[in-house]
């Protein structure tokens, strides 16, 4: 029984890592730009398709191809923000929800038209391999995704706190007018931030494709998950997202084992509600 428990906990941690990567982009865009991106899952889906094509048409390994996926998705995000979302930024807060909803519908349908509704999976040679620690089996691909999650956490932290661009982004988030006074060009900066968020989404899509299947309709539920993680962890810092992801992954795995497989959603969203009601800034966020 102990063996089973440790396996399930390990499963939860690895799942959590993947969840965290999915949520990074959403948390960044929401925390910094105050844009609630309901199309986040659709961008994850697009990143997955991109990685799939890179693997099956160019032969590029999905992990090695992550930088390319990131760059292309960044460009996409930049264009979307600069060309579309910047147009509604100063409007009623609500409109970001609505426009990203519309965007989600458009992206999903375009994917359906371009790629059909068939399931695609990214199956590199090592996809089924695993490493054993005692009796616990750890799939290589999930371990790699976890490593990526850790790397991204550290990377984002350093970026936001140490680099000039990162600090400019945080400044813009705090105070648009003051940022302007410092010579920051908000339109460009907003677009860069959103681009970063989408690049992160794209990367998580590539990882998702190695672990599960891609089809045009996976976006909605992934967005919901990413929201849950962002809130639970707290929007203020990247470590919060990692913690939120891990927390959710472990809770879901344990719930499936001890209460029943049909209760996983009750647990994850129930905790989300609890966190919102008790501590809205999240587990690691600064108390309001």
């Amino acid at each position, binding site marked *: 029984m102990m063996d089973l428990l440790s396996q399930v906990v390990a499963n939860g941690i690895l799942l959590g890592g993947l969840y965290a990567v999915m949520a990074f982009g959403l948390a960044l865009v929401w925390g910094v730009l105050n844009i609630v991106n309901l199309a986040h899952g659709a961008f994850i889906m697009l990143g997955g398709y991109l990685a799939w094509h890179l693997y099956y048409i160019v032969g590029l390994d999905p992990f090695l191809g992550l930088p390319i996926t990131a760059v292309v998705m960044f460009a996409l995000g930049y264009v979307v923000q600069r060309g579309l979302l910047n*147009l509604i930024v100063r409007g009623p*807060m609500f409109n970001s929800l609505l426009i990203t909803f519309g*965007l989600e519908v458009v992206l999903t349908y375009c994917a359906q038209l371009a790629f059909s509704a068939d399931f695609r999976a990214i199956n590199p040679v090592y996809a089924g391999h695993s490493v054993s620690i005692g009796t616990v089996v750890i799939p290589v691909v999930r371990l790699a995704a976890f490593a990526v999650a850790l790397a991204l956490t550290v990377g984002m932290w350093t970026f936001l706190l140490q680099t000039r661009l990162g600090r400019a982004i945080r400044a813009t988030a705090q105070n648009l007018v003051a940022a302007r006074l410092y010579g920051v060009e908000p339109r460009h900066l907003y677009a860069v931030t959103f681009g970063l968020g989408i690049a992160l989404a794209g990367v998580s899509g590539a990882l998702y494709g190695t672990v599960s299947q891609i089809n045009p309709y996976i976006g909605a539920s992934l967005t*919901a998950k990413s929201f849950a993680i962002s809130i639970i962890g707290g929007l203020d810092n990247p470590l919060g997202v990692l913690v939120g992801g891990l927390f959710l992954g472990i809770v879901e795995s344990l719930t499936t084992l001890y209460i029943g497989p049909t*209760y996983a959603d*009750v647990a994850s*969203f129930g905790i*989300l*509600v609890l966190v919102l009601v008790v501590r809205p800034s999240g587990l690691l966020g600064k108390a309001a």
Partner: protein
Amino acid sequence: MKPWRSKPWRIAALVLALAAAAGVPWYGSDVLIQFGINALLLAVLAQGWNIIGGYTGYPSFGNSVFYGLGGYGVGIAMVKWGLPFAAGLAFGVALAVIFALTLGVLVLRLRGHYFAIATLALSQVMAAIVSNVPLADRNIGLVLPPLNNDPFFYELALGLLVAATLCIYVITRSRFGFGLIAIRENEESAAVMGVNTTLYKVLAFTLSGIFSALAGGIHAYWITFLDPDSAFDISLNVKMIIMAVFGGPGTVFGPLVGAFFLSAVSEFLSSEITSIAGLFFGLVIVAAVVLMPRGLADAIRNMHPLGWRYFASNVRAHRL
């Protein structure tokens, strides 16, 4: 003032429109009646949302919970307990009220995005919980006894919409309504001025929930099938918000107009362009948010003096 803008004329026009709408089951085609039922129920949902989202300024993504509870109220009452439809509706409303009072108090302490996400999470939780409740037949869903009477459902939905709109009309002229608007504009000041914000918010949430539950109950009986996914469907919630916001939130007729317009557009696309209907609908939403962010009502009012420049001025006002 032009004669047809005066009050008696407006009332006459309204009565005429109502009579025309009520007469659809007689002169309309079967397709039109079904479209009508669907659009009317969506309009009720949009109006219900209007109370908590439009007037009170709390963007609820949880109205689908009330909708689902209403549907399951009717479903459980009719299928499991053999009760008549009216009893089912009452049961559904009771469930909605209990939910609004207990969880509403907790959730209404949050603002803006956080409130939205909390209500969204609640709808997911409810869907997940109901799919585990044996009384509701878990995730298999309930099959209700078929009733072949579209005109009945139509008139019922129409009646509900009239009730909802009247309710909002009365609210806008009451202290309760002013209190809600005050909460929306500046909650702290409202509290300082003596508005019992918690009571008002919970009341608004409950009222909004009652209408949503009734709509859900009617829909369940009409479609004769109910399962957690379709009952607590999140995209339905988004649709009702879009319709309310598109039409003009915080107005009496805005959501109604928004619901009908968007339903008609969606139905037209689905029957004419069929496969890419969804795509076009998404594009329409995106375009609408960019060009008409304050809703259709606002656009109509201002189109007259400004013409096409209205759209450009909107973009200029809201872009970064």
